[in-house]
């Protein structure tokens, strides 16, 4: 009887209430997309990534002395002149002076590390020590046709430049360092012929879990947990034959092959 009474009160209130409550609060508060850059806060959904970006000061996270990189530097990657041209350049959806619909990606894409790290220039002091302000020179070509615009006009202020191109130790401006030594950069001297990890990198490229060689890059250059199953030889099998006639003989080592493989597991960060 009491339950019936309670239900009646709830029904009466619902019927009489002028306002309805949306299930998803805030769904009608639209972001303004007309400003430069990405106006949608990636951190809203990717709070865990934002937290990770604060854990260490390193490449991409404040090593330049000008704060961590913005999400769009990597995930809406800009046109880069000095890079391995096999990497595709994407058109993302954007609204600035014009509305550009996305083509290969809308808001963001995952990015191959080698997109930015496959050039052939590195570590030089900029001719003009353009540490204080990049913009007077690297501006929109329509305003200053004598200078190459930064990333084809993608960025509009020096702060963006500094977060990637500053060197906190020297005060210089530097090119993004190529990840040489795997024969994947545009440098002719990058042969990678002695690289121990080249098979890891090549397998990562073939594997489609992540973009390009990212599995290999991240395994070493981040604190990402990595579990490795090694399968290693513990023995060499050697075939030694004595060749002989009545008057002449010699010993010959005909074959050396790896054998007796054993498997073991390494987990990065567990020891």
């Amino acid at each position, binding site marked *: 009887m009491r339950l019936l009474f309670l239900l009646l009160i709830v029904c009466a209130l619902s019927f009489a209430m002028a306002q309805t409550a949306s*299930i*998803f609060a805030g769904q009608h508060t639209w972001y303004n997309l007309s400003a430069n850059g990405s106006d949608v806060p990636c951190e*809203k959904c*990717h*709070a*865990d*990534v934002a937290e*990770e*970006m604060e*854990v*260490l000061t*390193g*490449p*991409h996270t404040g*090593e330049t002395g000008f704060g961590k990189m913005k999400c769009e530097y990597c995930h809406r990657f800009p046109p880069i002149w000095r890079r391995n041209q096999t990497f595709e350049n994407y058109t993302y959806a954007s609204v600035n002076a014009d509305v550009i619909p996305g083509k290969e990606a809308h808001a963001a894409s995952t990015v191959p590390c080698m997109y930015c790290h496959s050039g052939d220039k590195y570590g030089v002091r900029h001719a003009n020590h353009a540490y204080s302000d990049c913009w007077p020179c690297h501006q929109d070509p329509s305003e200053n046709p004598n200078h190459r615009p930064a990333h084809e006009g993608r960025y509009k202020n020096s702060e963006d430049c500094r977060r990637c191109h500053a*060197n906190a*130790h*020297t005060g210089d401006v530097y090119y993004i360092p190529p*990840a*040489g*030594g*795997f024969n994947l950069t545009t440098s002719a001297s*990058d042969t*990678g012929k*002695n*690289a*121990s990890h080249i098979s890891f990198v090549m397998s990562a490229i073939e594997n489609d879990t992540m973009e390009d060689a990212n599995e290999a890059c991240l395994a*070493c*250059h*981040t*604190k*990402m*947990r990595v579990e*490795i199953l*090694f399968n*290693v030889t*513990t*023995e*060499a*099998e*050697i*075939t*030694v*034959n*004595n060749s*002989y006639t*009545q*008057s*002449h*003989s010699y010993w*010959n*080592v005909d074959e*050396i092959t790896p054998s*007796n493989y*054993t498997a*073991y597991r*390494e987990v*990065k*960060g567990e*020891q």
Partner: protein
Amino acid sequence: MRQTIALALILGVASLVLLTSTDVFTLFASQHTFVNVSFAENDINCADCHHRIQEELNSSAYHNNFSCEDCHRFTGTGITFASGDGASATPGREAHAAYTPRCLDCHGGSGTWIGSEFAPPAKEFNESNYGSNYSAHKKLVLKAKNSNMSAGENEACLVCHTNYSCKISYSYFYNINYTLENWSFSSFSYNGTRYYDVQWVKSGAKHEFLDLDKIKCTKCHKNIYDALVNGTSGSGENYLTHAPIEIDTTGSGNWDTDNAWGHYRYHYIPSYRAVHVNSSYCFRCHNVDKYADENPSYALTYNLSYVIEDTNSTDVHCAEALTCATCHAKGKTKEVIDNTDRSGEGHSGEDFVGNISYARTFNGDICMGCHEAAVHPDGGGQCSRCHKWGNAEVYIESEPSGYAENT
């Protein structure tokens, strides 16, 4: 009923939370925590992924005080590795983080200083074309160089100098027959093929380097060890081959243990043969220079400074490929001479040993066909057959059985 309602409520709330949650979780956590690589040294800890290698090195006799970078980012080869020190960055060229070094990168040439540690040259193998052909293991090094199993010649280094195991399958002749008439060969033949497998089982760890005295010749050359220690059982003496005239006081001959050169028999193996046949015993013949160096009093007794000149032991890595003639041919320090305690000249005074023209692989067994203790007749008035006239009809098996007949 209440439980069902509670469960339904929990599921409903959980679904609503999931539906309205704006957080997504990254598939590979921590992929945005980038390691700072701007310090001068290597900032990425190799042992994070190669912990087992670190453990191997910790229990290694050598290199245990080296860092990974000392060997795997060795700069003496001209390889450019990726590096940076804050002020500048160098992209890698031939390698990015590390390379697999050849042992000879440090142990070749005149050796190398790694910090305050000197990596000595690997004698002979440090030279062009790996030194002289007298090095018994040169073929192994050459094969290792041409195989694609590891960098450079490393397989050859690893099987002896580390706990990396090895299994060797040998094949060689099974036996020879020959007839000797007045110190001339009137017939000679070789027969059959002996297959001999040996396995030196170790921990398998390639980064556990062995003390030099832990490298046992007899582990890989067990057929020789067996020939010297076990052979084939005989009624008086056992048939033991590879080192000559092993008659001892247990036999009916009661031979003395000194010899015509006036000293204790060089090749003699006293009791406890299993113990006495060791690397040091091997070096008596196969590396006289090393043996003399390690046994100065014996060097004096046996005039080893002169014997060394007869051999090529200063030109080998660890062992010399030789024949009996290397030391006992005419003109050598230990050329065959008469034992004045015994009658008969044997083949002293002539270069019987040096003139054996059959393939060198048969050389030792030709000598052992007469110099094996078990084939020595126990009296019976046959001394002159060999010691004077030089007549013998011999059948002898290769190592390890060494069984022989001499009639």
